[in-house]
Every structure is written in C-alpha cells, then in structure tokens.
C-alpha cells in the first residue's frame, strides 16, 4: 500500500470523527507555522506607518537636504494637522471625492444587480455578452483614461453621437466645464467598475438555492416578492462586501481621472488622491502629505471596521 496516499485518503474519509482534535491541535500548529509570515507582514505594514507618523510631525521635504531619519531637526509638533484642518482645498477635495463615491457606487450597484439578474437566466448569446461586459474591468485604468479623454473632446465621438441623435451640431466642451468634467469622470468610473459589481453580485445570485426559489414560487410568491424575501436576504453579506470594496476603491479614484482632467478645470475634479499627488510632486511638502495620508487612513479604517462588523454580524446571523 502506498502509505502517503493511504494516510491522505484515510484522513479525508475519517475526518468526520477527527474533527474535534483537528480543531485544537491544528489551531496551535497553524499559529506557529504562520508566525514568521505574520512577523513579516507586521514589519511591512507597521514600519511604513510609523515612518509616516514620524514625518507627519515635521516639516521635512526631500529638498531639505536631510535624510528622513533626521527629520526631527524640522520638528513642528502638530502644525501639519492644524494646517490641514484649515486647508479649504483639502476639504473641498474630500467633499468632491465623497460626491463621486455617493453617485458612482449606487449607480454601479444598481446596474450591476440588474445585469446580474439578467445573467442569472439563460438567453441566446449569453457567453458573448458576458465577455463583452467584463472587458472594461480588464482595461488598464490609464488606458481607460485616454479612451474617455478622447471620447469627451469637443470634436470627439460623444458629441458626434449627440449630434446624430439630436440632428443639430452639438459641441459641448465636456472636460472644460467644471460640472460636466465631473460628470464625465463619473461616467468613466461607472463604465469601468460596474462589471466588477456585476461579477460579485452574479456570484451571490447564483448561490441563492434554486429549490428555495422554486418553493417560494410554488407557495405563490411573485417575482418581486421572491426578490425581497429570498434573494435580498440571502445576498446580504455579498452585497455588503461588494459595496465595501467599491467604496474603498472609489475613494482612491485617481488614474483615469488624472489622465482625463488632471484634476481640472481648476480644481473642479480634484479628488483627495489627485490633491495628494500634486502636493507630493509639485509642492514637495512631504511632511504635510504624510499628515493628510494618515488622516485619510484613519477615516477609511473606521469605515472598514464598521463594514467588517456588519459583515461579521450578517455571517453570524446566517450561520
């Protein structure tokens, strides 16, 4: 008998009775095995954080002629943070980021859910449409930025389409108008990220047990009742996950936007990432940048912890 395969097979077969052991001993062993990796991760994550905190308390800049470890010579206590509180440009960038998120994520969610429900059933050409639908997600964001940059030029395809539709010559300066530029940027984001939402929600939708849906139908529930009483409750966890992913990602919106508008006209499309980027590359005030980054991290962490708690609660309720 091949002992290696034998033990594996037998382990699997007998696993039922061994479950109790496994949990205790395996937990201990697992902890020890994971320890080196944990230390490494801790180092990777914690070290930059501490470094950032340190720099954020100084006026250090790469132009100051000091190594970052000597930044204490430029110590300014909490000046960066008090500056931040009074920085109107920062607050408006933060507000703009929030507006983009509040528009884009729900639209992506509703579109994604609608598409997912469409794709949960069979229809001719499903596979083809499926592939087409997923394509935006695979486009490099920078490339997507250029695509939309060209799409929204005054002489670009968007205006051509609108001209054809309205029958009169349309020449909107999309990216030069503060409001329209923001709208264009949002459209690009929705175009690129609805597929991800669709994919996650479809996975959740397919996981709704078919026989429970049939049972509901047999008990007289109509499509809307089935959706609200069976589909939504069963998808609660996955919906929270999908929203959390997109909220966090959307908060960091940068590459597509930067290529389309560079944050302009003026600061009309300047989100928090764009603002930080400009401070870093143009103003080179890294101490201040570190302070902003930490502040943002704090906000995002609180949001994430909240989302995770909700998720855990949902899972608990389900288990």
């Amino acid at each position, binding site marked *: 008998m091949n002992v290696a395969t034998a033990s594996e097979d037998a382990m699997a077969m007998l696993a039922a009775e061994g479950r109790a052991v496994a949990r205790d001993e395996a937990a201990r062993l697992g902890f020890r095995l994971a320890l080196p990796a944990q230390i490494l991760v801790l180092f990777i994550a914690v070290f930059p954080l501490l470094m950032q905190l340190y720099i954020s308390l100084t006026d250090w800049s790469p132009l100051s002629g000091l190594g970052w470890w000597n930044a204490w010579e430029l110590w300014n206590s909490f000046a960066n943070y008090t500056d931040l509180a009074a920085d109107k440009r920062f607050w408006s960038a933060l507000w703009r980021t929030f507006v983009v998120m509040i528009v884009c994520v729900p639209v992506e969610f509703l579109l994604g859910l609608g598409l997912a429900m469409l794709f949960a059933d069979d229809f001719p050409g499903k596979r083809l449409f499926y592939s087409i639908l997923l394509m935006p997600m695979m486009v490099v964001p920078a490339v997507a930025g250029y695509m939309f940059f060209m799409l929204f030029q005054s002489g670009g395809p968007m205006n051509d389409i609108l001209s054809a539709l309205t029958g009169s010559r349309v020449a909107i300066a999309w990216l030069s108008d503060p409001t329209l530029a923001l709208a264009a940027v949002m459209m690009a984001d929705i175009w690129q990220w609805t597929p991800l939402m669709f994919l996650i929600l479809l996975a959740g939708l397919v996981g709704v047990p078919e026989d429970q849906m049939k*049972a509901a139908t047999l008990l007289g529930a109509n499509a809307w009742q089935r959706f609200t009483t069976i589909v939504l409750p069963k998808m609660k966890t996955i919906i929270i996950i999908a929203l959390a992913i997109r909220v966090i990602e959307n908060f960091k919106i940068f590459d597509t936007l930067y290529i389309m508008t560079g944050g302009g006209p003026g600061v009309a499309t300047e989100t928090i990432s764009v603002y930080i980027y400009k401070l870093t590359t143009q103003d080179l005030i890294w101490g201040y940048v570190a302070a902003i980054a930490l502040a943002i991290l704090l906000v995002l962490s609180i949001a994430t912890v909240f989302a995770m708690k909700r998720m855990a609660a949902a899972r608990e309720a389900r288990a």
Partner: protein
Amino acid sequence: MSTIRLENLVKKFGDFTALKTMDLEIADGEFMALLGPSGCGKSTTMNMIAGMEEPTSGRILFGDRNMSGVPMGRRGVGFVFQNYAIFTHMTVRQNLSYGPRMHGAPKAETDRRVGAIAELLQLTALLDRRADRLSVNILQRVAIGRSAIMEPVIFLLDEPLSNVDAAFRAVMRTELKHLQRQFRQTMVYVTHDQLEAMTMADRIAVMDHGVLQQVGTPLDVYNNPANVFVARFIGAPGMNLLPGRPAESDRGLVIDLGPLGATAPLPERLANALRGHSGEILFGFRPEQATLAGEGRGIAAQVTAVERIGARTIVHLGEGASAIKVVLNNDQQAALGASAIVTPNMDAVRIFNRATGQAIGGSGNG
C-alpha cells in the same frame, strides 16, 4: 382535492427523451407512488405536474382543468423537496406563514393557520427557532407544514425520506401513510426505493427509461409483474428468473430449465397460455414463494451463500443466469455448499417471454 390526469405526456430535453408518452390517472385522495431507478422519468413527470417544467406535448388535467400554461404558483400544488428547501434565513414561523403572507392574507388569519398547522405537526415549541439548524425530521415537518397551510389540491413529495436515517425512516413511512389515510389528501410520491412505494402507496406507477411499465396496487405489482423489469425491481430480493423452454411431459406442461432440470407441471391457466409458445421463456418465482429440501424432485442447485439477516435467511443457490435466491424464516436452515432442491410454489409462478420481457398468461390469481 381533485383527480389528476396525464394524457400522452411527453418530455424531451433537446435530443434526450426523458418521458415517452405517459398516461396515468390519479384518483381523488389517492396515494400514488412514482417508482423507478434514477433517470426513469419519475422526477420529470412530477416537475411537470407541479408546473416547473412544461410538457413537450400532451396534457395535464386537475379535475377538468387543463393545466397547460398555468404557472406553478397558481396550480394549488404542495411540493416537498428532497432536501426540503426550507428558507434557512427565516424562522420556522416565517417559513410556515410564507404562503399566506405572499397571498396577502390578514395577519390574524395567518397566525391562526400557522398555530393550527404547528399544533398538528408538533412544531409549536419550535416556531421561533431559526430554520437553519434544525434536524432532518423537523425540517421535513416544516416542509410539509409550509405546503399544507396552503391547503393544496395535491401534494407532491420528491424522495422526502432519502436523507433520513434507516431506523427513523421506517417510523416516518408509517406516520406519513397514516397522515395521508386520515386526510385523504391526493399525494404523488416519487421514490427509487421499492420498499417505500410498497409500504405506503395505494397504487404504484413503475417507470423505467421514460416509459411507464406498470400501474397497480403494491401487491398487484409484486404478485403479477407485467414484465421482467418490474419483476426484478419490486421485492427484496427481486424475483428469480430462470431461462427455459416449455416442454410436454406425462404430468402436463413443464418448463425445461436445462441443467437445472424440469419444473413441476404448470397450473392450468399458465399451461394454456404457454401452449403453442415455442420460444425461450423466463420462469419466475418470488424468493419467498419457494421451499428448500435436501432431496426430491425439483430444481437442483448448490448453496453458494447464506445470509442470516435477523428474521429472514436469504439462501443463494447456483451461479450466473441460473442463480436463485430463496428466503427462509430464520428457523429453517441451509448449509453452505450443500446440494438442495428448490421447490417453487407453482401457484405463484410467473412466466415471461424471454425476447420481449413481457409476462405471459396475464395476471395470476390476484
């Protein structure tokens, strides 16, 4: 309550024919079992009755109402799924009240009905438990209650006992049968287990490869199988079927079983039906309808295995096509390797055309 009539029912999935022409009438208040191995078309038939599948052709009538085009939510059909399809994110109460709630029944009315059904199925104490951690037998009762609360015209059950452990299954069989007999609810019960069909059903529809093989009461199907498939499928063990040819002897018409010898003379009725039949036949008798003796006239064979299973002893004799099983009470003995004479009860013998598999001589004394 109503009768169900299946007329020329056909179901094809692409090139695959799941059901080739099914005609069946289920009486009001009848417990009908659809029995057959997996892939025989029984589940397809039931899904069409429920409205989950549309027939390729043919009609389904509840009473006089043609059901074609009636969506499954409007057929008034109760359905108990194999895994019960309980709404796991709800409590037992929410499961039971689901149907009335979806129909917009008033709250007080719903509460009253849930209370009554819970009482009947002994679920009252469990009403506020979440449905995802209940044991199989409770899940089953919830599934039945959830359908029963809608007072369906007909109840469809899809192998509801297959997840229940063996000892409890016997109890559930008795209970389910008793419940049905009390309420006279029309029931269609799909199963691959001949024991379940035999013990519970008023009538059994035996199916194989999308074809209805026989419809009859359990004892009818057991005693007078219409063909070789039914003979083998019903009973545990199935019927013994020995190849042979009819032969005239001085005692009357007998079956020449080749190396096993000749049988005793056939009863008049079978002999008459067999005269003039020259082809090969299968000589069939139930393992319970034969005795073993050390010597004498009859079918001679060697004992190859003896299984003593509590109340019964299954004796295996011979090998291959001429293998025979005889079931004895456990007070009778058979020794391994001994030669034995098998004497079938000739009144309970059945003859089948070997080429077509069909029974010859119609029904017996039953």
